[in-house]
């Protein structure tokens, strides 16, 4: 069943951590893009993020043509210096709430908001 696939279980189980969509296959295919970026439009399939194009770039930017030239769109005009917060995600282990742990430290347990 699709729900039993590791990429679905992984995404579902880590979502209560509120760090976003956990990708089972996090590394991009380099010939398509180097890294996921703010403004990317795409979809997740089997734990992999497929980038279609990035709307902070012009519609006909070369990097937006990897899957085919997009239809015209008006670029999203945002100021990255004033509207993007940078922070650190602490190293350690992140795991779902129904798991138990022995002999580990620096871990982050998924919890419901009211817990």
């Amino acid at each position: 069943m699709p729900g039993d696939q590791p990429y679905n279980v992984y995404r579902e189980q880590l979502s209560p951590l509120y760090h976003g969509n956990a990708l089972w296959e996090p590394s991009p295919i380099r010939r398509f893009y180097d890294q996921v970026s703010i403004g990317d439009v795409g979809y997740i399939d089997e734990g992999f993020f497929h980038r279609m194009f990035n709307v902070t770039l012009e519609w006909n930017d070369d990097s937006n043509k990897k899957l085919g030239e997009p239809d015209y769109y008006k670029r999203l005009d945002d100021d990255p210096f004033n509207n993007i917060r940078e922070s650190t995600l602490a190293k350690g282990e992140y795991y779902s709430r129904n798991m138990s742990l022995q002999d580990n430290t620096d871990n982050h347990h998924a919890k419901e908001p009211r817990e």
Partner: protein
Amino acid sequence: MYKSKGRGALLSLPHDGHRKDVMRTKMYEDYIRDNVVSWFEWSKKMRLGVERMEDLILVTGCTLVTSWAAAAFVDQSQEAEISLAAQALSNGGGRFYWSRIRGNVPRHNSPLDPVRSPRCQCSFLPCTDSYLVL
């Protein structure tokens, strides 16, 4: 050692991740509303396999790391367990040792070397804060 009664998941990061988030998302929400129909039509035209409009994502945040290990406890009815020792390497990479595996626990990890130069802080993404189009 990690034990799970039913489904579970584990992500191990030997090094801090670098996170970026859009602070004011209203502009992005409006932008999605104005464009999502044409994005979906384009994905259909290109036969990308996007089944529903709400499957499209506009990324408003992401976390980039240089090494990682991931495991999924996929069996809903069985108890499973696994041990993981993660060693952070000075170059940003990581070394991972999986052991004492019991049950169905698919797992994998990044290679020994960092996925990208840690100096540029842009290796890859274990999680993406994304705005799901509704």
